[in-house]
């Protein structure tokens, strides 16, 4: 069964992003929302971890959260898809279940 994981914490704040990635099954997707959008930016100490995880999972980041934080869409790691709230809804219905990492 395919699963959508959502994460909302900055990887600089705690280990939620790392835990989520380490416990994601292979055909899962991860959606970064709220402060977690920081995870998908280029040139941070987490960039490499995200880039290598892109081989195993599809990754998405919520555009309104990137924009609200002044994060340039051009600096989002290649391969991470930038999505809106309606896409968020589609992601939840296209996967069999949803886990919000709180």
């Amino acid at each position, binding site marked *: 069964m395919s699963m959508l994981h959502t994460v909302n914490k900055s990887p600089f704040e705690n280990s939620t992003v790392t835990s989520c990635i380490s416990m994601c099954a292979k055909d899962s997707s991860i959606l970064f929302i709220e402060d977690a959008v920081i995870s998908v930016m280029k040139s941070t100490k987490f960039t490499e971890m995200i880039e290598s995880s892109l081989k195993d999972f599809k990754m998405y980041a919520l555009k309104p959260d990137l924009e609200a934080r002044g994060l340039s869409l051009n600096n989002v790691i290649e391969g991470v898809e930038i999505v809106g*709230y*309606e896409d*968020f809804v589609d992601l939840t*219905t296209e996967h069999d279940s*949803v886990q919000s990492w*709180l």
Partner: protein
Amino acid sequence: MKLGILINEGPYQHQASDTALQYVKAAIKKGHEIYRVFFYNDGVNNATRLATPPQDDRNITKEWSELAKNHNIDLVVCVAAAQRRGILDKGEAERNGKDSDNIEEGFRISGLGQLVEAGIQADRLITFGD
């Protein structure tokens, strides 16, 4: 699809309730049914009508209330979590000997079973919290 929503944080302190509002609006726009929005943990604080945010800020409680009214959404506040945090409807206030209630129109107080039922009946349950 039938969607169940769980909100575990109060308004303003965390973005959770704002994100949930945006998600629910998008889901309605896409033609999905919101089976229920359940408020748990500090999420019960979304239900107080006594909150008075500054005029230039959003009023999250009012937004939920209006959304519920316009789209006939069931907003349920967990009774045990609400009692701990002083969120009361008229009946609960009377039962507990309190001098007033504070629940916003459109919200109702009920048991945790309503959350489990939403999990069982809805096609997906999506949690928003911290």
